[in-house]
């Protein structure tokens, strides 16, 4: 067995979280640097995975296996395919960036960073699991840090409501998913993902249980009509948690729905695909329309995530090579884009102390980096060529047209509206006159500029050189297509 890179990646934040919690609360600097260190270790590990993953061979690599509860068929079983590697890189990026933008958290930094690390461990665990029980275990341990961080450090007006709503939705979703997972276990006799793939569930079984698993997990991907936790939750959360929630956690939901739903019950996926396509199309258009009329800066981004996750779900549900490839790319692209969005929203709020777009304006002159970063993320979100969003959305529409042209026709509306609300925000927040109340606003610190720069460069680099990530995701597309069959 080679070097346990995946374990290092998953356990580092867990250990960091525990150590931070044990430190005296006055050691703020040490706490911050520990958290940043853990984030960077995750990032480096994920980059090592990226470099070391054999794209020719494909399939699951870096496999680690240790029996845990052999009587129940449960094991500590880790391994990644191309999509999971991409998601882990995304996780490493967003966690590190989240620590950096939270550098100046004054209110109980010890608990803040510690909980954040637990959340990071949970997310990384889901992406790396090859055991259904382990996956579910990691999936669930995210709930507590999420809830606590929202209600403790969230924005005072809505944190209790938003936190509770999010927790409730995700609890109910995971409960439904648990029922489905149990059904899989009972029928397949194991939690081992690779063995379950070979279990050959009957069509009737798949028709019945696919929606439990898929929709249960997809609640975290904000599928309509179970999306309403997302905007409220994102907005209530502190900046770093908004970044993690929208940037990574939503992908966790879709990833789990893909792994445990589509890949284990491909026939069920085909049966249910029209339903998913329909709901996800609603996501795209509905989220975009609502984003357009928000007056709260952060709610715009919150609803835009609902809209963009719809594109991911459409891509998956087409069950075509183009669609799935696009979905995988969109997961990465949207993750970086929305993390940057929320980071900038947080930076603006920290300086201006308001998120009401009626009271903002002219910040282009005050914080040019934030404005430039927002425009870059905005161009990604409207699928502009030269940015990662185009590389992702283009194949999704190709796939959607093949699967059901009407879906492409309706969803394309979402792109126009996206352009509308992005420009609306740019205009209201960054252009125009600086209101007198904001005259004293200062530019953002260097560490924030670095964060903006790194995310922007990644999104532009992928836009121009898609071969940075496409072949990686492609390995997963091939695996998925083999399972799903000739569709």
């Amino acid at each position, binding site marked *: 067995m080679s070097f346990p890179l995946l374990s290092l990646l998953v356990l580092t934040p867990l250990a960091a979280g525990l150590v931070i919690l044990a430190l005296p609360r006055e050691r703020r600097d040490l706490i911050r640097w520990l958290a940043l260190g853990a984030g960077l270790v995750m990032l480096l590990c994920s980059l090592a995975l990226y470099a070391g993953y054999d794209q020719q061979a494909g399939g699951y690599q870096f496999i680690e296996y240790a029996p845990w509860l052999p009587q129940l068929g449960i094991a500590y079983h880790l391994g990644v395919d191309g999509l999971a590697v991409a998601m882990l890189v995304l996780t490493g990026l967003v966690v590190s960036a989240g620590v950096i933008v939270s550098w100046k958290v004054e209110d109980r930094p010890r608990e803040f960073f510690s909980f954040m690390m637990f959340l990071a461990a949970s997310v990384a665990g889901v992406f790396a699991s090859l055991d259904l029980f382990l996956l579910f275990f990691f999936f669930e341990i995210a709930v507590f840090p999420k809830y606590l961080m929202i209600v403790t450090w969230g924005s005072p007006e809505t944190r209790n409501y938003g936190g*509770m709503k999010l927790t409730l939705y995700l609890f*109910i979703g995971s409960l439904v998913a648990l029922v489905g997972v149990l059904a899989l276990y*009972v029928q397949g006799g194991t939690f081992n993902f690779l063995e379950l793939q070979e279990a050959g569930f009957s069509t009737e079984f798949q028709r019945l249980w696919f929606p439990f698993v898929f929709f249960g997990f997809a609640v975290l991907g904000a599928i309509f009509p179970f999306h309403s936790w997302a905007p409220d939750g994102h907005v209530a959360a502190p900046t770093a948690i908004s970044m993690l929630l929208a940037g990574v956690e939503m992908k966790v939901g879709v990833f789990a729905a893909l792994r445990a739903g589509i890949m284990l019950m491909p026939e069920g996926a085909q049966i249910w695909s029209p339903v998913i396509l329909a709901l996800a199309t609603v996501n795209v258009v509905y989220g975009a329309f609502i984003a357009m009329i928000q007056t709260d800066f952060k709610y715009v981004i919150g609803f835009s995530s609902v809209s963009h996750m719809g594109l991911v779900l459409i891509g998956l549900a087409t069950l075509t090579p183009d669609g799935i490839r696009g979905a995988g790319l969109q997961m990465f692209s949207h993750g970086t884009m929305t993390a940057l969005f929320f980071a900038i929203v947080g930076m603006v709020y920290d300086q201006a102390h308001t998120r009401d777009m009626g009271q903002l304006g002219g910040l282009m002159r005050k914080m040019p980096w934030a404005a430039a970063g927002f425009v870059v993320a905005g161009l990604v979100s409207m699928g*502009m060529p030269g940015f990662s969003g185009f590389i992702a959305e283009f194949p999704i529409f190709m796939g959607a047209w093949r699967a059901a042209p009407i879906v492409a026709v309706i969803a394309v509306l979402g792109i126009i509206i996206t352009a509308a609300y992005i*420009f609306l925000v740019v205009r209201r927040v960054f252009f*125009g006159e600086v209101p007198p109340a904001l005259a004293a606003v200062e530019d953002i610190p260097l560490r924030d500029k670095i964060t903006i720069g790194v995310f922007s460069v990644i999104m532009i680099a992928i836009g121009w050189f898609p*071969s940075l990530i496409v072949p990686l995701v492609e390995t997963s597309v091939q695996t998925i297509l083999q399972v799903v069959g000739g569709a």
Partner: protein
Amino acid sequence: MMTSLFIWLLPLPPLLAFFVILLFTRSRNRLSHALAIGGAGLSFLGSMIVFFRAITTPDLAASPFGSAIAWLPVAGEPVRIGVMVDPLTAVMLFFVAWTVLMIFIYSVGYHNFGQPAGKEDQPGLPPRGAEVRVKNETSRVPSIEPMYARFFAFVSLFAAAMYLLVVSDNLLTLYIGWEIMGLCSYLLIGFWYGKTSARDAAVKAFLTTRIGDMFMLLGMAALFAQTGTLSFQAILGDPEVLAKLAGTASVIPGLSWAGLIGLLLFAGTVGKSAQFPLHVWLPDAMEGPTPVSAMIHAATMVSAGVYLVARFFPLLAAGWEPGQPVTTPMLVMAVIGSFTALFAATIAVAQNDIKRVLAYSTISQLGYMVAALGAGAFVAAVFHLITHAFFKALLFLGSGSVIHGMEHGVMHTGEHIDPQDMQNMGGLCERMPVTFWTFLIGGLALAGFPLVTAGFWSKDEILSGALAGGHRVVFIVLALAALLTAFYTARQITLTFLGKPRTEAAAHAHESAPTMTVPLVVLAFFAVTAGWAGIPEAFPGLGGMVPNWLGGFLGTMPNIPHGEEGHSLVPLLTSLLVSLGGLWLGWLVYRGVQAGQADPLAERLGGLFNVLRSKYYLDELYQGIFVRPAQWLSETFAYRWLDQGVIDGILHGVARGALLLGLFLRRFIDIPLINRSGDVLAEGSRDMGGLMARAQTGRIQMYMVITVGIAVIFGLIIVFLVPGLRP
């Protein structure tokens, strides 16, 4: 082979100039414009080399220059991107290279390079002038644009995108260039973002063209789904593919795939080339600096739209034989094109802003090209695209020179007048001779002044093509539009240059710097000579004296059905009549306009004139039937009613129900049954709850208990009740 690789380099210099200026030389004006013009110059030289190689290569159409690389490595067929130069690309390159370079040089003078920076100037607003003291005398002079370098960066990106679009050998990279141009138009129309009108215009331009782009994207998806490729050669160069597309029925009843894809792609053109009903963005786009207007109206944006349909003409016309009824996309193009040509010309008649008249004339002229393609006159459409690019670039740059001269006068006299309003001009021909003569040439070309101007030849070819193809209605509508064109051109020239100055500012106007006037002269040269490249063989009298080079060159393009060649006296006489008649009428009506006098046409047309001046109230109509309902749908229906009312309502209802259940358990089971025995415990927990209240609301535990309970029940149901699942 060398040429093939060389083509790759064409979009590169302006692109590099964009990055270098934006990243490194933003604060250095001279270096920045040197980089931008150098980049445009390199692309220009390259384009000329490619162009002359192209026209000297026999059989270019059958085996165009080109090469391709794999860009998106995916399993199976990798997505390849590449470049290609065939006859159509070659002529595009020719006029794009010339107009872009001229516009770049002109921009140096337009943005007042070499002038001092104004004290009150700030980024995002046009420069307001600076005070200069010479020998104890203060005078007001124009000041340099505060974002001078940034302008050259954006406009370089614009040029790079156009080059990319033109040399693309596939729809994907064409679309990339297309979208980057959309972004550039947003950045440049909104260049003076401090002005509300400029911000509105920028957003309007981007969103309106994007509506067309989305149809185009769907068209690409459909094309890719049907053929598995987006390469021009593989689709448009292969008669079998075209026949198959034209022969299979699409998802829309009564329409073949070729028809449906053609219509979707044409919708992209409707947005980009500002055809009715998506034309509303183009007149507002003049809010940007004037060189930007010239870029958009001549060298790039709108030409790209017509290029798309010209490029895809084999698909649009798939299944059509000359003499037969036209295909559905062609019919739609003929209708929309000729309607737009007339419709925009009527609006142009009633505008007072010198640039706005030109903007509507662009819409109208683009309508000619679209209608020509609809009537099957492929060569005529491309011919008009080329000549129009030259004379429209000339006219816009000329109007910029006029405005500059007027601003000079305004600065001198301190009047508070609009320097773009033609009512405030008059008699400028003496003050600004170079601008006048070049503008006159451009105007006559636009009006189709017989025999000497390029516009005459291309417009005449469209008219005769329409008549020869049997499209009488198209012919009549376009002839009417030509009459109006000549009329408003004469109106514009008369009001601007002839007569007596109607304001002090006009009397003190000043000829522009050589950096501005030299490009005007160069463009005026092409506004005359470009027409000689395409004098039809069958033209009465003159035909055959100069070979119809363009017809021969473009005529070799594969899979393009060519309409009847016949050229009779009817279109010729019509051309002569409408052009000269319109010019004469316009001069007659407007020659005696005095300062403060109302438009002579307003008295005669009455209410109709106001409708024209208000552009048929289309902006207001769109606001009423699209923008407001969309807002209502988002705000009232989706957000307030569905999201907050229904979906959250259900959630809150469930939560309230759970609380009631809890209350019920407490009131009727807990208290009466267990009574006070648990009080101690309860008080203890309450205190604990108070301690933890900061982190927990106290309700979550109950939900968790409920959920775990349900989980257990479900688990039991699965394991024991569902047949077939029992372990």
